[in-house]
């Protein structure tokens, strides 16, 4: 059986949907996790400062591949059978939450302390301060680096292929093995990743430039 490019390209593009889905899950999960970490860090600094720092250090100081293996082989020990998609989603969510928490921490720290003092003097409690004063201002500076991190996250989903999740990289492996044209196939796979990541890179850069002008 011979496969032509007309067969291969649609096959890879369909597989890229799973890459996008996994990225979306990891980003939404990671953003929610990071927000919780942020609330913990600033809401209860006595425990939160140390605990979130350790969490971030653990996830940034170990390979994502190993984190993925720990979820994939660890959860079954707790009696939870996980599919490759579920394992990859959980691992990437934890990974993204650590990176986003670290990025956003910098953005919250960039808000002048006077903003905290002023809102406190108006009688706002912590949640109200965060909701109406601190987060809206941090959000503005947080967007460019967050979009930049999306590129990193999207690329990281390629590791899900190793636990057998059928996304772009794994589909590329399958086609490369079937057609004996690894050069062409991996070049195509790289090109599809590039087509997904490069617009985000450009967007992040444009946002950063715009912010430098407005500030």
């Amino acid at each position, binding site marked *: 059986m011979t496969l032509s490019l007309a067969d291969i390209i649609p096959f890879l593009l369909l597989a890229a949907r799973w890459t996008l889905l996994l990225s979306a899950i990891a980003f939404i999960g990671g953003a929610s996790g990071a927000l919780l970490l942020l609330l913990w860090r600033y809401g209860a600094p006595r425990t939160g400062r140390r605990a979130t720092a350790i969490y971030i250090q*653990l996830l940034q*100081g*170990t*390979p*994502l*591949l*190993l*984190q993925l*293996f*720990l979820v994939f*082989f*660890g959860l079954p*020990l*707790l*009696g939870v059978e996980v599919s490759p998609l579920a394992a990859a989603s959980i691992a990437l969510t934890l990974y993204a939450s650590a990176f986003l928490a670290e990025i956003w921490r910098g953005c919250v720290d960039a808000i002048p302390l006077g903003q905290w003092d002023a809102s406190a003097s108006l009688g706002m409690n912590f949640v109200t301060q965060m909701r109406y004063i601190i987060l809206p201002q941090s959000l503005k500076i947080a967007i460019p680096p967050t979009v930049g991190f999306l*590129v990193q996250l999207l*690329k*990281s989903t*390629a*590791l899900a*292929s*190793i636990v057998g999740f059928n996304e772009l*990289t794994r589909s*590329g*492996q399958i086609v*490369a093995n079937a057609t004996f*044209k*690894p*050069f*062409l*196939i*991996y*070049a195509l*796979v*790289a090109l599809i*990743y*590039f087509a997904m*990541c*490069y617009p985000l*890179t450009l967007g992040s850069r444009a946002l950063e430039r715009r912010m430098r002008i407005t500030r």
Partner: protein
Amino acid sequence: MGYDFDFTAIAANSGLLLHGAGLTLGLTAIAATLGMALSIGGAATVLWGSPWAQRLVRLYVEAIRNTPFIVQLFFIFFGLPSLGVKLSAFEAAAVAMTINLTAYGIEITRAGIEAVPPGQREAGYAVGLTPLSTFLYIILPQAIAVVYPSLVSQIIITMLESAVVSQVAVTDLTHAADLIQSRTYRAFETYFVVTLIYLGMALTLRALFNRAGRRLFAGKPA
């Protein structure tokens, strides 16, 4: 729960882990050394090279930064042989890691060079240094001092990402873990211990680099 953790099997295979950790560190050392040299050359090209050379380096940087490392590795290991470039798994891993690190290194180094005030270069010329000497002895040391922490982080990221090279059968630390877990059926324990080893290596490496940095760049504005 009904599961008893058993770490004895891992202790019995500590030789394998030691070999794997050594290989991971060796690959990282190769990638860091070659990558830094190439990054400096690349950054200089982006800033002062001929227009087509600038474009070529920029294309390279964007291509690498917007594709996953594992795809780059597969392309080099599985794809290049069809062009007649046959690399062993170790060579392919070293090349892929170097290429990857260089792309990020160029951006970091360029930012560092741009952070050096132009007066430094003019001063170098004024005392009669050649452009090359001005770059090597005046600009570069100051540029590296500024971006040293970012370069260290990037080297450590490269080491952590190198776990993927186990997929082309390089016998690195993760490969040792794969081997041990398939022999002992103690997947979780094995990967847990190996994850901690990576963490230890990352922390140690950072501490060593920081220490070296304090000595290398003592008295320089950071």
